[in-house]
């Protein structure tokens, strides 16, 4: 079942078209990376899903229920972590979670139990001071705790790691990764390594349209180009192999750097086996032969340029 369905979503701010017919479906219990440049429309999409912004066209369904702008009914299925979560600085973490729990309609006993459990999960158990004295990382972790309080079916995180130091970032990624299988996580970011490390599905948004979507493996398969990296024992061997007649043809690109040679092939007749045969015929034994997989970064750069 799809937890989130977005169909033909259009949105403009004055003359600036932010979303141009966005379509997206997110299956239950996946960790979904929503990738795009700054200004690509990620936050706008999330705010429309939360009923905080009104789309000019299209619809959004959360757990099968249509989202209505200004109303909060569908938000009972959602936990939301903004990029910079803001809290009432005069409150302590337990008090803030109690306020959230009361709004969600949980019983006092359940609020107490869930709050303790979640503060422990995010490493804030035993922190009994006012939120105004919290660091950014602590606020982000408290933000995750409040977002998970109502055991949401959909957890939306808007660039949760963009302003954190490496340790804070790792902590947040570990917490989100631990949610896999328990809830659906939609995780917007422009830090591609974060997406690669925890997401099982990815969508790339560019100028308000989805330009790439699927699992990382699917995307890599779709955009695979035959690229190989061969490292020789010496620069001379690399130079000699690069001059091979069979490689001097259309569809084959060679790039030599010292004793390393990168071969990109669009001609399917030249595969790994053909290259190994060529090496064998020339009695060359490379130190390393590697089939290069496209990285998310290279794919992202390719589709947004």
């Amino acid at each position, binding site marked *: 079942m799809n937890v989130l369905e977005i169909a033909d979503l259009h949105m403009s701010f004055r003359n600036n078209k932010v979303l141009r017919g966005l379509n997206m479906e997110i299956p239950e219990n996946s960790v979904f990376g929503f990738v795009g440049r700054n200004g690509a429309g990620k936050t706008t999409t999330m*705010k429309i899903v*939360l009923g*905080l*912004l*009104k789309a000019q066209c299209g619809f959004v369904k959360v757990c099968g229920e249509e989202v209505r702008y*200004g109303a*909060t*009914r569908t*938000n*009972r299925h*959602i*936990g*939301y972590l*903004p990029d*910079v*979560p*803001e*809290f*009432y600085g*005069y*409150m302590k973490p337990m008090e803030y979670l109690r*306020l*959230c729990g*009361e*709004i*969600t*309609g949980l019983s006092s006993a359940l609020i107490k139990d869930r709050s303790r459990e979640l503060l422990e999960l995010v490493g804030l158990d035993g922190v009994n001071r006012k939120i105004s004295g919290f660091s950014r990382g602590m606020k982000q972790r408290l*933000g995750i705790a*409040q977002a998970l*309080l*109502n055991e949401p079916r959909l957890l939306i995180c808007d660039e949760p790691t963009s302003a954190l130091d490496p340790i804070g970032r790792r902590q947040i990624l570990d917490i989100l990764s631990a949610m896999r299988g328990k809830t659906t996580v939609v995780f917007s970011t422009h830090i591609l390594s974060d997406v690669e490390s925890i997401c099982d599905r990815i969508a790339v948004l560019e100028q308000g349209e989805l330009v790439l979507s699927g699992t990382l493996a699917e995307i890599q398969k779709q955009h695979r180009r035959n690229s190989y990296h061969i490292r020789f024992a010496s620069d001379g061997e690399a130079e000699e192999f690069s001059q091979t007649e069979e490689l001097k043809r259309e569809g084959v690109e060679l790039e030599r750097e010292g004793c390393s040679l990168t071969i990109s092939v669009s001609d399917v007749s030249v595969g790994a086996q053909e290259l190994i045969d060529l090496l064998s015929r020339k009695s060359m034994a490379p130190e390393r032969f590697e089939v290069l997989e496209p990285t998310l970064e290279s794919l992202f750069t390719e589709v947004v340029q």
Partner: protein
Amino acid sequence: MSHFLVFVKKELVEYVRTYKLLILLVVFIIFGIMNPLVAKLTPELLTSFMPEGMFVTIPEPTALDSWAQFFKNTQQMGLIVLLLVFSGVLGTELTKGTLINLLTKGLSRQAVVLAKYTAMVLVWTLSVVVSAMLTWIYTVYLFPDGPMGYLFVAIFCMWLFGVFLLALLLASATMVRGNYGGLLLTGLALVILMVVNIFPEAHTYNPLSLGAKNMSLVSGTVDPSSLYAAMVVSTLAICGLLFLSVLVFQKKEL
């Protein structure tokens, strides 16, 4: 607990912990104590500042002077302090983004508006009651000169005017962004009411009249019935402003 009650509780806790309640209570307690004292000491102070050889006959102060001080202080400085303290009632939350978490938890926007208004009215009511009680106690002690005319009606009218101003402030805050935008719009609305008051026919209905006849009511020279129309108009205006606030806030993009 309903969203409304949860949010009223949150607002009251906020007023206590951010010292807003303390500031207002201190100001209104000072007024309450000072009103009768100033009335009592004014003739003596004036006499002491007179040049030597000059004699002026100053009438003996009465309880009326004490209540005149009460209405003057509360309606001028009191209301200004009240509006300043609550100037960021919605703007601060919208600018900082503290409401986002709660709205995405299902908190209704209507509950936010109505709870904020209720909490402000509660604080205003407490401030007026404390100040009036202190003024009354000291007035009875210093000027035991008999009963007042329509004192409670006069205090009620002043309270109602404050309640109207708070509704105006909240409605303004939903319409403009920033902490002081709402305050400016409220000021503008008051200026319009003052301009309208130039026409004598408007006096009967203008909410400003609620604060203009306090001492006439206390001295018994004006009948409360002359203010009924202004009371009804103010109450309707309060309901209208609250309805407008909810409507505007429901449609506000956050």
